[in-house]
């Protein structure tokens, strides 16, 4: 019985880490949306800034990846 509760808590925790995905989605969407609105105002300057777009997306995404890491640790290491 005790083991079952621990197992249940583990799976609930893994499910909760999916919330982190939403945070990463908000961050990535924010960056891409702001890039697009800036690019539509000044399309000539947009091409030179795509590298920063991807760097920004990568950094925002990293925090979503940490929640994936927590899920992996809960599933396979705890």
């Amino acid at each position, binding site marked *: 019985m005790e083991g079952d509760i621990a197992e249940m808590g583990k799976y609930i925790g893994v499910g909760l880490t999916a919330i982190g995905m939403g945070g990463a989605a908000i961050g990535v969407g924010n960056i891409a949306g702001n890039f697009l609105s800036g690019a539509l105002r000044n399309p000539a300057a947009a091409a030179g800034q795509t*590298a920063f777009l*991807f*760097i920004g*997306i*990568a950094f925002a*995404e*990293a925090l979503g*990846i*940490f929640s*994936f*890491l927590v899920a992996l640790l809960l599933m396979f290491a705890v």
Partner: protein
Amino acid sequence: MAEQTGGFVIKPMDQFVVKPLFGGDVVHWYTPTNVTLWMALTVLAITVLLMLGTRGRAIVPTRGQSMAELSYGFIHKMVEDVAGKDGLRFFPYIMTLFMFILFANLLGLIPFAFTTTSHIAVTAVLALTVFISVTVLGFVLHGAKFLKLFWVDSAPLVLRPVLAIIELISYFARPVSHSIRLAGAMMAGHAVAKVFAGFAGALGVASFVPILAVTALYALELLVAAIQAYVFTILTCVYLRDALHPSH
């Protein structure tokens, strides 16, 4: 990991199992496995594209030559833009990283293929080599001045020690996020494709819906494969720039 839907078992994680090529279950460090096979195929594919493609050196390039030249020019420009002119010394390393990751991702999309980059062990080695070589490079080029990277001069003096701790933590989180981003994106994409393909087996006549979905997903995965290779390389360039010019 097994999931029961209408008497049909979906095992989305089975495709990531490392198996020895010539039978048996025991994997030693020298055992040729499916990872070895697909890594060798990756290297072979890159060699064929870059060496055979540029062999003709025609003024009007063939399709192969133009692909090889485009990828070379793309990475060359990226290193120059992000890491600066003095970063071009490390262009061969970054080009190798990009081509290896891109081809490993793309070859993994072939049905029944094995995606080497979906394993954290593989991407962690790639990210750790970047991390260690960039850190060593920073100390070799700048000595103790490299630590200025953690000492934000533009901030108020009271805040600087706090910022230094945060910068230090984020510096050591770099290889973690660098490696898990690639492995996670690859693993998640392939697992989702497998789950949708499993639905097709369970639904019978209505299976054209998941088949259409899996086709769209495959197109998305092609995009993700290229973007993840690009992101891995551009972050390598960013870390390289930090090592070359540590002052903020």
